[in-house]
Protein backbone atom coordinates (compact mmCIF):
# COMPACT_ATOMS: atom_id res chain seq x y z
CA UNK A 1 0.00 0.00 0.00
CA UNK A 2 1.61 3.25 -1.18
CA UNK A 3 0.10 6.63 -0.28
CA UNK A 4 0.74 9.82 -2.22
CA UNK A 5 -0.96 13.21 -2.42
CA UNK A 6 -3.38 13.90 -5.31
CA UNK A 7 -3.39 17.68 -4.96
CA UNK A 8 -4.29 19.29 -1.64
CA UNK A 9 -7.65 17.56 -1.18
CA UNK A 10 -7.07 13.87 -2.02
CA UNK A 11 -4.80 10.92 -1.27
CA UNK A 12 -3.98 8.27 -3.86
CA UNK A 13 -3.65 4.79 -2.38
CA UNK A 14 -1.87 2.49 -4.84
CA UNK A 15 -2.47 -1.21 -4.22
CA UNK A 16 -0.89 -3.01 -7.15
CA UNK A 17 0.85 -2.67 -10.49
CA UNK A 18 -1.07 -5.01 -12.81
CA UNK A 19 -4.78 -5.48 -13.49
CA UNK A 20 -5.62 -8.82 -11.94
CA UNK A 21 -8.20 -10.32 -9.63
CA UNK A 22 -5.88 -10.31 -6.61
CA UNK A 23 -5.32 -6.55 -6.85
CA UNK A 24 -9.03 -6.09 -7.52
CA UNK A 25 -9.93 -8.02 -4.35
CA UNK A 26 -7.61 -5.80 -2.31
CA UNK A 27 -9.14 -2.65 -3.87
CA UNK A 28 -12.63 -3.98 -2.97
CA UNK A 29 -11.58 -4.78 0.59
CA UNK A 30 -10.00 -1.35 1.18
CA UNK A 31 -13.03 0.34 -0.38
CA UNK A 32 -15.39 -1.62 1.90
CA UNK A 33 -13.32 -0.70 4.97
CA UNK A 34 -13.37 2.98 4.02
CA UNK A 35 -17.16 2.81 3.72
CA UNK A 36 -17.53 1.02 7.04
CA UNK A 37 -15.17 3.24 9.05
CA UNK A 38 -13.98 6.31 7.17
CA UNK A 39 -11.37 8.44 8.96
CA UNK A 40 -12.77 11.87 9.97
CA UNK A 41 -12.48 14.33 7.08
CA UNK A 42 -12.94 11.78 4.26
CA UNK A 43 -15.64 12.92 1.82
CA UNK A 44 -15.49 10.47 -1.11
CA UNK A 45 -13.56 7.56 -2.63
CA UNK A 46 -12.91 6.43 -6.19
CA UNK A 47 -11.83 2.80 -6.51
CA UNK A 48 -10.04 2.04 -9.79
CA UNK A 49 -8.02 -0.81 -11.36
CA UNK A 50 -4.93 -0.45 -9.17
CA UNK A 51 -5.74 2.30 -6.70
CA UNK A 52 -8.30 4.19 -4.65
CA UNK A 53 -8.42 7.98 -4.64
CA UNK A 54 -9.65 9.23 -1.26
CA UNK A 55 -11.00 12.78 -1.33
CA UNK A 56 -10.95 14.72 1.94
CA UNK A 57 -11.62 18.16 3.39
CA UNK A 58 -8.30 19.48 4.78
CA UNK A 59 -10.13 21.74 7.26
CA UNK A 60 -12.05 18.76 8.70
CA UNK A 61 -9.08 16.48 9.44
CA UNK A 62 -8.61 16.28 13.22
CA UNK A 63 -5.24 16.36 14.98
CA UNK A 64 -2.23 18.56 15.63
CA UNK A 65 -2.60 21.77 13.61
CA UNK A 66 1.20 22.08 13.34
CA UNK A 67 1.19 19.02 11.08
CA UNK A 68 -0.10 19.41 7.52
CA UNK A 69 -3.60 17.96 6.98
CA UNK A 70 -2.22 15.56 4.35
CA UNK A 71 0.17 13.99 6.86
CA UNK A 72 -2.62 13.63 9.40
CA UNK A 73 -4.96 12.08 6.81
CA UNK A 74 -2.27 9.70 5.53
CA UNK A 75 -1.56 8.56 9.10
CA UNK A 76 -5.27 8.04 9.76
CA UNK A 77 -5.63 6.01 6.56
CA UNK A 78 -2.57 3.83 7.30
CA UNK A 79 -3.95 3.18 10.76
CA UNK A 80 -7.50 2.43 9.55
CA UNK A 81 -6.37 0.15 6.72
CA UNK A 82 -3.38 -1.63 8.31
CA UNK A 83 -5.15 -4.92 8.92
CA UNK A 84 -7.40 -5.11 5.84
CA UNK A 85 -7.28 -8.52 4.17
CA UNK A 86 -8.22 -9.08 0.50
CA UNK A 87 -10.86 -11.66 1.45
CA UNK A 88 -12.82 -9.11 3.50
CA UNK A 89 -14.68 -7.75 0.51
CA UNK A 90 -18.41 -8.19 0.21
CA UNK A 91 -19.96 -10.94 -1.93
CA UNK A 92 -20.24 -10.06 -5.63
CA UNK A 93 -23.61 -9.59 -7.33
CA UNK A 94 -24.28 -11.38 -10.61
CA UNK A 95 -25.98 -9.08 -13.13
CA UNK A 96 -27.52 -10.53 -16.30
CA UNK A 97 -27.74 -8.17 -19.28
CA UNK A 98 -29.91 -8.95 -22.34
CA UNK A 99 -28.34 -7.99 -25.66
CA UNK A 100 -29.73 -7.86 -29.19
CA UNK A 101 -26.59 -8.67 -31.21
CA UNK A 102 -25.78 -7.49 -34.74
CA UNK A 103 -27.86 -5.68 -37.33
CA UNK A 104 -28.38 -1.95 -36.93
CA UNK A 105 -27.95 -2.30 -33.16
CA UNK A 106 -24.51 -3.91 -33.46
CA UNK A 107 -23.03 -2.52 -36.68
CA UNK A 108 -19.49 -3.86 -36.09
CA UNK A 109 -20.46 -7.49 -35.33
CA UNK A 110 -19.90 -8.87 -38.84
CA UNK A 111 -16.64 -7.01 -39.28
CA UNK A 112 -15.33 -8.10 -35.88
CA UNK A 113 -16.26 -11.72 -36.67
CA UNK A 114 -14.37 -11.53 -39.99
CA UNK A 115 -11.27 -10.13 -38.27
CA UNK A 116 -11.17 -13.22 -36.05
CA UNK A 117 -12.25 -15.66 -38.80
CA UNK A 118 -15.37 -16.47 -36.85
CA UNK A 119 -19.05 -16.38 -37.75
CA UNK A 120 -21.31 -13.76 -36.15
CA UNK A 121 -22.99 -16.60 -34.24
CA UNK A 122 -19.59 -17.72 -32.90
CA UNK A 123 -18.93 -14.22 -31.57
CA UNK A 124 -22.33 -14.15 -29.86
CA UNK A 125 -21.76 -17.63 -28.40
CA UNK A 126 -18.33 -16.68 -27.06
CA UNK A 127 -19.44 -13.26 -25.74
CA UNK A 128 -22.46 -14.76 -23.92
CA UNK A 129 -20.44 -17.75 -22.70
CA UNK A 130 -18.07 -15.79 -20.47
CA UNK A 131 -18.50 -14.19 -17.06
CA UNK A 132 -17.10 -10.69 -16.72
CA UNK A 133 -15.85 -8.72 -13.73
CA UNK A 134 -16.51 -4.99 -13.26
CA UNK A 135 -13.09 -3.66 -12.25
CA UNK A 136 -14.18 -0.06 -11.98
CA UNK A 137 -16.72 2.54 -13.07
CA UNK A 138 -15.31 5.60 -14.80
CA UNK A 139 -15.27 7.70 -17.98
CA UNK A 140 -18.96 8.65 -17.76
CA UNK A 141 -21.76 8.03 -15.23
CA UNK A 142 -22.30 4.29 -14.90
CA UNK A 143 -19.70 3.18 -17.48
CA UNK A 144 -18.34 -0.15 -16.19
CA UNK A 145 -14.89 -1.33 -17.28
CA UNK A 146 -15.27 -5.13 -17.50
CA UNK A 147 -12.46 -7.64 -17.69
CA UNK A 148 -12.69 -11.30 -18.60
CA UNK A 149 -13.17 -10.99 -22.35
CA UNK A 150 -12.20 -14.32 -24.02
CA UNK A 151 -8.96 -13.96 -25.95
CA UNK A 152 -10.65 -14.89 -29.25
CA UNK A 153 -12.63 -11.62 -29.09
CA UNK A 154 -9.84 -9.22 -28.11
CA UNK A 155 -10.07 -6.49 -30.77
CA UNK A 156 -8.32 -3.13 -31.03
CA UNK A 157 -10.42 0.02 -30.91
CA UNK A 158 -11.64 1.35 -34.26
CA UNK A 159 -9.08 3.50 -36.07
CA UNK A 160 -11.56 6.37 -36.27
CA UNK A 161 -13.85 6.74 -33.25
CA UNK A 162 -17.55 7.41 -33.83
CA UNK A 163 -18.70 10.88 -32.90
CA UNK A 164 -21.94 9.48 -31.44
CA UNK A 165 -22.26 5.96 -30.10
CA UNK A 166 -25.94 5.32 -29.25
CA UNK A 167 -26.85 4.83 -25.58
CA UNK A 168 -26.85 1.20 -24.36
CA UNK A 169 -24.52 0.01 -27.13
CA UNK A 170 -22.45 -3.05 -26.16
CA UNK A 171 -18.87 -2.81 -27.34
CA UNK A 172 -15.46 -4.43 -27.33
CA UNK A 173 -12.35 -2.29 -26.89
CA UNK A 174 -9.03 -4.12 -26.60
CA UNK A 175 -9.29 -6.67 -23.78
CA UNK A 176 -12.44 -5.16 -22.36
CA UNK A 177 -16.14 -5.19 -23.00
CA UNK A 178 -18.68 -2.66 -21.80
CA UNK A 179 -21.97 -0.88 -22.32
CA UNK A 180 -22.25 2.85 -23.10
CA UNK A 181 -24.70 4.31 -20.53
CA UNK A 182 -25.57 7.31 -22.73
CA UNK A 183 -24.82 8.64 -26.17
CA UNK A 184 -21.20 9.73 -26.43
CA UNK A 185 -18.23 9.69 -28.77
CA UNK A 186 -16.48 6.32 -28.66
CA UNK A 187 -14.00 4.05 -30.41
CA UNK A 188 -15.14 0.60 -29.30
CA UNK A 189 -16.44 -2.01 -31.77
CA UNK A 190 -20.23 -2.14 -31.36
CA UNK A 191 -21.62 -5.67 -31.39
CA UNK A 192 -25.13 -5.15 -30.01
CA UNK A 193 -27.41 -3.11 -27.82
CA UNK A 194 -29.21 -3.80 -24.57
CA UNK A 195 -32.73 -2.59 -23.75
CA UNK A 196 -31.65 -2.25 -20.08
CA UNK A 197 -31.02 1.28 -18.77
CA UNK A 198 -27.40 1.38 -17.59
CA UNK A 199 -27.73 4.84 -16.01
CA UNK A 200 -30.96 6.55 -14.98
CA UNK A 201 -30.64 9.49 -12.56
CA UNK A 202 -34.29 9.05 -11.55
CA UNK A 203 -33.75 5.44 -10.44
CA UNK A 204 -32.23 4.26 -7.16
CA UNK A 205 -29.60 2.97 -7.60
CA UNK A 206 -29.05 5.07 -10.70
CA UNK A 207 -26.37 2.79 -12.10
CA UNK A 208 -26.97 -0.81 -13.14
CA UNK A 209 -23.36 -1.87 -12.54
CA UNK A 210 -20.89 -1.25 -9.72
CA UNK A 211 -17.26 -2.22 -9.17
CA UNK A 212 -17.03 -5.85 -8.07
CA UNK A 213 -20.15 -7.03 -9.94
CA UNK A 214 -19.99 -10.19 -12.04
CA UNK A 215 -21.76 -9.80 -15.37
CA UNK A 216 -23.16 -12.18 -17.99
CA UNK A 217 -24.78 -11.28 -21.29
CA UNK A 218 -27.57 -13.24 -22.97
CA UNK A 219 -28.80 -12.95 -26.53
CA UNK A 220 -32.31 -11.69 -27.30
CA UNK A 221 -34.11 -11.25 -30.62
CA UNK A 222 -34.91 -7.91 -32.19
CA UNK A 223 -38.60 -8.56 -31.39
CA UNK A 224 -37.75 -9.09 -27.71
CA UNK A 225 -35.57 -5.96 -27.74
CA UNK A 226 -38.41 -3.90 -29.19
CA UNK A 227 -40.91 -5.36 -26.74
CA UNK A 228 -38.65 -4.24 -23.86
CA UNK A 229 -38.55 -0.67 -25.19
CA UNK A 230 -42.04 0.02 -26.53
CA UNK A 231 -41.45 3.76 -26.57
CA UNK A 232 -38.12 3.90 -28.33
Amino acid sequence: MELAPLGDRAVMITLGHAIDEATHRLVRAISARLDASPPAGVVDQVPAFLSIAVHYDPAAVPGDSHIAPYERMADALRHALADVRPDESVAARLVDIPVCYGGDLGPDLEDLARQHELSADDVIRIHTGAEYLVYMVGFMPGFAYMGGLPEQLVTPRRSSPRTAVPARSVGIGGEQTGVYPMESPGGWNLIGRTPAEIFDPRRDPATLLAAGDRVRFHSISLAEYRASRPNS
Partner: protein
Amino acid sequence: MTIRVVSGGLQTTVQDLGRIGHQRDAIPVGGAMDRVALRTANLLVGNSEGDAALEASLIGPTLAFEQAAIVAITGADLEASVDGRPLPVWHAAHVPAGGTLRFGKPGIGCRAYVAMAGGIDVPKVFGSRSTYVRANFGGYEGRPLRSGDVLPTGEASDRSARIAAEIRPADNAFAVSRWSIARSLRPRYGEEPTVDVIPGAHTELLTAEARGRLTGTAFRVSSSSDRMGYRFEGASLALRERLELKSEGVAFGTIQLPPSGSPIILMADCQTTGGYPRIGEVASVDLPLIAQLKPGDRLRFRFTSLAEAQQRSLELERDLVQARVGLDLHHVS
Protein backbone atom coordinates in the same frame (compact mmCIF):
# COMPACT_ATOMS: atom_id res chain seq x y z
CA MET B 1 -40.86 33.44 -4.42
CA THR B 2 -40.18 32.95 -8.11
CA ILE B 3 -37.94 34.67 -10.64
CA ARG B 4 -38.80 34.79 -14.32
CA VAL B 5 -36.02 34.28 -16.85
CA VAL B 6 -36.40 36.88 -19.60
CA SER B 7 -33.21 35.80 -21.33
CA GLY B 8 -30.91 32.92 -20.36
CA GLY B 9 -27.66 34.57 -21.42
CA LEU B 10 -24.84 32.54 -22.94
CA GLN B 11 -24.63 29.71 -20.40
CA THR B 12 -26.35 30.30 -17.08
CA THR B 13 -26.70 27.25 -14.86
CA VAL B 14 -27.78 26.46 -11.31
CA GLN B 15 -24.74 25.40 -9.26
CA ASP B 16 -23.89 24.61 -5.64
CA LEU B 17 -20.78 22.97 -4.16
CA GLY B 18 -21.33 19.73 -6.10
CA ARG B 19 -22.11 16.07 -5.58
CA ILE B 20 -20.37 14.26 -2.76
CA GLY B 21 -20.17 10.49 -2.52
CA HIS B 22 -21.03 9.40 -6.07
CA GLN B 23 -17.66 9.50 -7.78
CA ARG B 24 -17.35 5.69 -7.61
CA ASP B 25 -20.27 5.54 -10.07
CA ALA B 26 -18.38 8.01 -12.30
CA ILE B 27 -20.86 10.76 -11.42
CA PRO B 28 -18.81 13.97 -11.52
CA VAL B 29 -18.67 16.29 -8.52
CA GLY B 30 -19.58 19.33 -10.63
CA GLY B 31 -20.75 22.49 -8.88
CA ALA B 32 -19.52 26.07 -9.09
CA MET B 33 -16.32 26.65 -11.08
CA ASP B 34 -15.39 29.51 -8.72
CA ARG B 35 -16.16 28.07 -5.27
CA VAL B 36 -15.04 31.22 -3.41
CA ALA B 37 -17.42 33.41 -5.42
CA LEU B 38 -20.34 31.02 -4.85
CA ARG B 39 -19.70 30.77 -1.12
CA THR B 40 -19.32 34.52 -0.60
CA ALA B 41 -22.42 35.27 -2.71
CA ASN B 42 -24.39 33.01 -0.38
CA LEU B 43 -22.81 34.65 2.70
CA LEU B 44 -23.91 38.08 1.48
CA VAL B 45 -27.60 37.10 1.27
CA GLY B 46 -27.63 35.09 4.53
CA ASN B 47 -27.72 31.62 2.95
CA SER B 48 -25.67 28.57 3.82
CA GLU B 49 -22.42 28.69 1.85
CA GLY B 50 -23.35 25.65 -0.22
CA ASP B 51 -26.83 26.79 -1.30
CA ALA B 52 -27.61 26.81 -5.01
CA ALA B 53 -27.07 30.02 -6.99
CA LEU B 54 -26.74 30.95 -10.64
CA GLU B 55 -23.44 30.75 -12.49
CA ALA B 56 -23.50 33.12 -15.48
CA SER B 57 -20.77 32.93 -18.13
CA LEU B 58 -19.63 35.91 -20.25
CA ILE B 59 -23.13 37.07 -21.19
CA GLY B 60 -25.37 37.09 -18.14
CA PRO B 61 -29.11 36.41 -18.03
CA THR B 62 -31.95 38.92 -17.73
CA LEU B 63 -34.08 38.13 -14.68
CA ALA B 64 -37.46 39.63 -13.75
CA PHE B 65 -38.33 39.72 -10.03
CA GLU B 66 -42.06 39.53 -9.42
CA GLN B 67 -41.54 40.02 -5.68
CA ALA B 68 -38.85 41.97 -3.88
CA ALA B 69 -35.68 39.98 -3.25
CA ILE B 70 -32.26 40.12 -1.61
CA VAL B 71 -29.64 39.37 -4.25
CA ALA B 72 -25.83 39.32 -4.28
CA ILE B 73 -23.40 39.16 -7.16
CA THR B 74 -19.81 37.94 -6.89
CA GLY B 75 -17.05 36.68 -9.15
CA ALA B 76 -16.40 38.39 -12.46
CA ASP B 77 -17.77 41.90 -12.99
CA LEU B 78 -20.31 41.38 -15.79
CA GLU B 79 -21.74 44.88 -15.22
CA ALA B 80 -24.91 43.87 -13.39
CA SER B 81 -27.62 46.49 -13.08
CA VAL B 82 -31.18 46.66 -11.84
CA ASP B 83 -33.45 48.89 -13.90
CA GLY B 84 -30.42 50.84 -15.06
CA ARG B 85 -28.76 51.28 -11.66
CA PRO B 86 -25.46 49.42 -11.13
CA LEU B 87 -25.29 46.46 -8.75
CA PRO B 88 -21.58 46.22 -7.88
CA VAL B 89 -19.96 42.82 -7.46
CA TRP B 90 -19.25 41.52 -3.92
CA HIS B 91 -22.27 43.44 -2.56
CA ALA B 92 -25.83 42.48 -1.63
CA ALA B 93 -28.80 44.46 -2.87
CA HIS B 94 -32.52 44.83 -2.37
CA VAL B 95 -34.29 44.36 -5.70
CA PRO B 96 -37.83 45.76 -5.64
CA ALA B 97 -40.89 43.88 -6.88
CA GLY B 98 -41.06 44.38 -10.63
CA GLY B 99 -37.29 44.99 -10.86
CA THR B 100 -35.25 43.55 -13.71
CA LEU B 101 -31.64 42.40 -13.33
CA ARG B 102 -29.52 42.71 -16.46
CA PHE B 103 -25.85 42.24 -17.32
CA GLY B 104 -23.48 44.12 -19.61
CA LYS B 105 -20.05 43.26 -20.95
CA PRO B 106 -17.39 41.21 -19.22
CA GLY B 107 -14.13 42.91 -18.27
CA ILE B 108 -11.68 40.73 -16.37
CA GLY B 109 -13.08 37.28 -15.67
CA CYS B 110 -16.04 35.48 -17.19
CA ARG B 111 -18.19 33.90 -14.46
CA ALA B 112 -20.54 35.82 -12.19
CA TYR B 113 -22.54 34.25 -9.38
CA VAL B 114 -26.04 35.42 -8.54
CA ALA B 115 -27.29 34.33 -5.13
CA MET B 116 -30.77 34.99 -3.81
CA ALA B 117 -31.93 34.75 -0.22
CA GLY B 118 -33.28 31.23 0.25
CA GLY B 119 -31.22 29.81 -2.59
CA ILE B 120 -32.49 28.40 -5.89
CA ASP B 121 -34.88 25.64 -4.90
CA VAL B 122 -34.65 23.04 -7.65
CA PRO B 123 -34.80 19.33 -6.74
CA LYS B 124 -31.58 17.69 -5.57
CA VAL B 125 -30.18 14.95 -7.79
CA PHE B 126 -27.55 12.75 -6.09
CA GLY B 127 -27.57 15.18 -3.17
CA SER B 128 -26.87 18.34 -5.18
CA ARG B 129 -28.70 21.00 -7.15
CA SER B 130 -25.80 21.48 -9.57
CA THR B 131 -26.55 21.29 -13.27
CA TYR B 132 -24.63 18.58 -15.12
CA VAL B 133 -25.36 19.50 -18.72
CA ARG B 134 -23.49 16.61 -20.35
CA ALA B 135 -25.85 14.04 -18.81
CA ASN B 136 -28.84 16.41 -18.56
CA PHE B 137 -29.52 16.11 -14.85
CA GLY B 138 -29.56 18.41 -11.85
CA GLY B 139 -30.20 22.14 -11.77
CA TYR B 140 -33.08 23.45 -13.83
CA GLU B 141 -34.16 20.46 -15.95
CA GLY B 142 -30.52 19.49 -16.45
CA ARG B 143 -29.77 22.39 -18.80
CA PRO B 144 -28.75 26.07 -18.99
CA LEU B 145 -31.52 28.60 -18.39
CA ARG B 146 -33.57 29.96 -21.24
CA SER B 147 -36.29 32.49 -21.80
CA GLY B 148 -39.56 31.58 -20.06
CA ASP B 149 -38.04 29.50 -17.23
CA VAL B 150 -39.37 30.24 -13.77
CA LEU B 151 -36.90 29.77 -10.90
CA PRO B 152 -38.25 28.93 -7.46
CA THR B 153 -36.33 30.13 -4.40
CA GLY B 154 -36.29 28.47 -1.00
CA GLU B 155 -37.40 29.87 2.32
CA ALA B 156 -35.20 32.74 3.47
CA SER B 157 -33.28 32.18 6.73
CA ASP B 158 -33.50 34.43 9.81
CA ARG B 159 -30.08 35.72 8.82
CA SER B 160 -31.47 36.67 5.38
CA ALA B 161 -34.40 38.43 7.04
CA ARG B 162 -32.03 40.54 9.18
CA ILE B 163 -30.00 41.44 6.08
CA ALA B 164 -33.18 42.35 4.19
CA ALA B 165 -34.34 44.58 7.04
CA GLU B 166 -31.02 46.39 6.97
CA ILE B 167 -30.73 46.98 3.21
CA ARG B 168 -34.37 47.64 2.29
CA PRO B 169 -35.02 51.39 2.17
CA ALA B 170 -38.23 52.92 3.53
CA ASP B 171 -39.59 53.45 0.03
CA ASN B 172 -38.85 49.81 -0.99
CA ALA B 173 -36.71 50.99 -3.92
CA PHE B 174 -33.52 49.37 -5.24
CA ALA B 175 -30.67 49.69 -2.75
CA VAL B 176 -27.14 48.29 -2.43
CA SER B 177 -25.62 47.15 0.88
CA ARG B 178 -23.11 49.48 2.54
CA TRP B 179 -20.92 46.48 3.37
CA SER B 180 -19.24 44.07 0.98
CA ILE B 181 -16.90 41.09 0.96
CA ALA B 182 -13.45 42.15 2.22
CA ARG B 183 -10.89 42.71 -0.54
CA SER B 184 -8.58 40.15 1.09
CA LEU B 185 -11.21 37.48 0.46
CA ARG B 186 -11.82 38.35 -3.20
CA PRO B 187 -9.67 36.23 -5.53
CA ARG B 188 -7.21 38.36 -7.53
CA TYR B 189 -8.59 37.68 -10.98
CA GLY B 190 -6.50 38.71 -13.97
CA GLU B 191 -5.89 38.08 -17.64
CA GLU B 192 -2.50 36.51 -16.89
CA PRO B 193 -2.59 35.18 -13.33
CA THR B 194 0.06 32.92 -11.80
CA VAL B 195 -1.25 29.87 -9.95
CA ASP B 196 0.47 27.64 -7.41
CA VAL B 197 0.99 24.04 -8.52
CA ILE B 198 1.70 21.11 -6.23
CA PRO B 199 3.95 18.46 -7.84
CA GLY B 200 1.89 15.65 -9.35
CA ALA B 201 2.49 11.90 -9.69
CA HIS B 202 4.47 12.35 -12.92
CA THR B 203 6.07 15.80 -12.53
CA GLU B 204 9.49 14.17 -12.11
CA LEU B 205 9.14 12.59 -15.55
CA LEU B 206 8.96 15.93 -17.38
CA THR B 207 12.08 16.65 -19.45
CA ALA B 208 14.23 19.46 -18.06
CA GLU B 209 13.16 21.56 -21.03
CA ALA B 210 9.46 20.86 -20.39
CA ARG B 211 9.81 21.71 -16.72
CA GLY B 212 11.44 24.99 -17.69
CA ARG B 213 8.62 25.77 -20.10
CA LEU B 214 5.96 24.87 -17.56
CA THR B 215 7.09 27.55 -15.14
CA GLY B 216 8.76 29.91 -17.61
CA THR B 217 6.05 30.56 -20.18
CA ALA B 218 2.51 31.89 -20.26
CA PHE B 219 -0.03 29.36 -21.56
CA ARG B 220 -2.80 30.71 -23.77
CA VAL B 221 -6.35 29.48 -22.95
CA SER B 222 -7.87 27.61 -25.91
CA SER B 223 -11.42 28.24 -27.08
CA SER B 224 -12.19 24.56 -26.48
CA SER B 225 -12.06 25.13 -22.71
CA ASP B 226 -15.22 24.50 -20.75
CA ARG B 227 -16.57 23.42 -17.35
CA MET B 228 -14.91 20.00 -17.79
CA GLY B 229 -11.43 21.25 -18.50
CA TYR B 230 -9.22 24.10 -19.59
CA ARG B 231 -7.03 23.46 -22.63
CA PHE B 232 -4.03 25.51 -23.65
CA GLU B 233 -2.27 26.45 -26.84
CA GLY B 234 1.40 27.16 -27.40
CA ALA B 235 4.15 25.52 -25.41
CA SER B 236 4.36 21.76 -25.89
CA LEU B 237 5.59 19.63 -22.99
CA ALA B 238 7.25 16.23 -23.15
CA LEU B 239 7.99 13.40 -20.73
CA ARG B 240 11.32 11.57 -20.55
CA GLU B 241 9.57 8.24 -21.09
CA ARG B 242 6.31 6.96 -22.52
CA LEU B 243 3.89 5.93 -19.83
CA GLU B 244 1.15 3.33 -20.08
CA LEU B 245 -1.19 4.27 -17.25
CA LYS B 246 -4.36 2.63 -16.05
CA SER B 247 -7.35 4.87 -15.37
CA GLU B 248 -7.54 6.13 -11.81
CA GLY B 249 -8.96 8.96 -9.74
CA VAL B 250 -8.36 12.59 -10.68
CA ALA B 251 -9.46 15.84 -9.07
CA PHE B 252 -10.62 19.39 -9.81
CA GLY B 253 -7.23 21.03 -10.52
CA THR B 254 -5.35 17.99 -11.85
CA ILE B 255 -3.05 18.99 -14.74
CA GLN B 256 -3.06 16.18 -17.29
CA LEU B 257 -0.58 15.82 -20.12
CA PRO B 258 -2.14 14.02 -23.12
CA PRO B 259 0.10 12.81 -25.98
CA SER B 260 -0.40 16.12 -27.84
CA GLY B 261 1.89 17.75 -25.25
CA SER B 262 -0.59 20.52 -24.41
CA PRO B 263 -1.66 20.40 -20.77
CA ILE B 264 -5.32 20.17 -19.71
CA ILE B 265 -6.47 21.40 -16.30
CA LEU B 266 -9.45 19.41 -15.05
CA MET B 267 -12.25 21.65 -13.82
CA ALA B 268 -15.53 21.29 -11.88
CA ASP B 269 -17.34 18.96 -14.32
CA CYS B 270 -14.31 16.72 -14.91
CA GLN B 271 -14.59 12.97 -15.16
CA THR B 272 -13.91 11.11 -11.94
CA THR B 273 -11.04 9.09 -13.44
CA GLY B 274 -8.41 9.62 -16.11
CA GLY B 275 -5.51 7.80 -17.71
CA TYR B 276 -3.14 10.59 -18.76
CA PRO B 277 0.07 11.49 -16.88
CA ARG B 278 -0.52 14.02 -14.08
CA ILE B 279 2.20 16.66 -14.21
CA GLY B 280 0.85 18.80 -11.39
CA GLU B 281 -2.14 19.69 -9.22
CA VAL B 282 -3.33 23.28 -8.95
CA ALA B 283 -3.59 24.49 -5.34
CA SER B 284 -7.33 24.53 -4.61
CA VAL B 285 -7.25 28.16 -3.41
CA ASP B 286 -6.06 29.25 -6.89
CA LEU B 287 -8.77 27.38 -8.85
CA PRO B 288 -11.02 30.49 -8.93
CA LEU B 289 -8.30 32.31 -10.92
CA ILE B 290 -8.48 29.60 -13.61
CA ALA B 291 -12.28 29.37 -13.51
CA GLN B 292 -12.43 33.04 -14.51
CA LEU B 293 -10.13 32.79 -17.56
CA LYS B 294 -11.57 33.45 -21.02
CA PRO B 295 -10.26 32.01 -24.28
CA GLY B 296 -7.22 34.07 -25.23
CA ASP B 297 -6.28 34.86 -21.61
CA ARG B 298 -2.97 33.53 -20.34
CA LEU B 299 -1.91 31.52 -17.32
CA ARG B 300 1.43 31.05 -15.56
CA PHE B 301 2.42 28.25 -13.22
CA ARG B 302 4.70 28.30 -10.19
CA PHE B 303 5.55 25.24 -8.10
CA THR B 304 4.64 25.21 -4.43
CA SER B 305 4.72 22.55 -1.72
CA LEU B 306 1.70 20.57 -0.59
CA ALA B 307 2.15 21.92 2.95
CA GLU B 308 2.13 25.53 1.68
CA ALA B 309 -0.97 24.90 -0.47
CA GLN B 310 -2.81 23.38 2.48
CA GLN B 311 -1.76 26.26 4.72
CA ARG B 312 -3.25 28.73 2.22
CA SER B 313 -6.40 26.60 2.03
CA LEU B 314 -6.83 26.63 5.82
CA GLU B 315 -6.27 30.41 5.90
CA LEU B 316 -9.02 30.86 3.30
CA GLU B 317 -11.39 28.78 5.43
CA ARG B 318 -10.58 30.92 8.49
CA ASP B 319 -11.20 34.10 6.48
CA LEU B 320 -14.58 32.78 5.33
CA VAL B 321 -15.56 32.01 8.93
CA GLN B 322 -14.50 35.52 9.93
CA ALA B 323 -16.50 37.03 7.09
CA ARG B 324 -19.60 35.22 8.32
CA VAL B 325 -19.01 36.27 11.92
CA GLY B 326 -18.39 39.84 10.76
CA LEU B 327 -21.66 39.93 8.84
CA ASP B 328 -23.54 38.47 11.80
CA LEU B 329 -22.08 41.03 14.24
CA HIS B 330 -22.95 43.79 11.80
CA HIS B 331 -26.60 42.74 11.60
CA VAL B 332 -27.04 41.97 15.28
CA SER B 333 -25.96 45.48 16.20
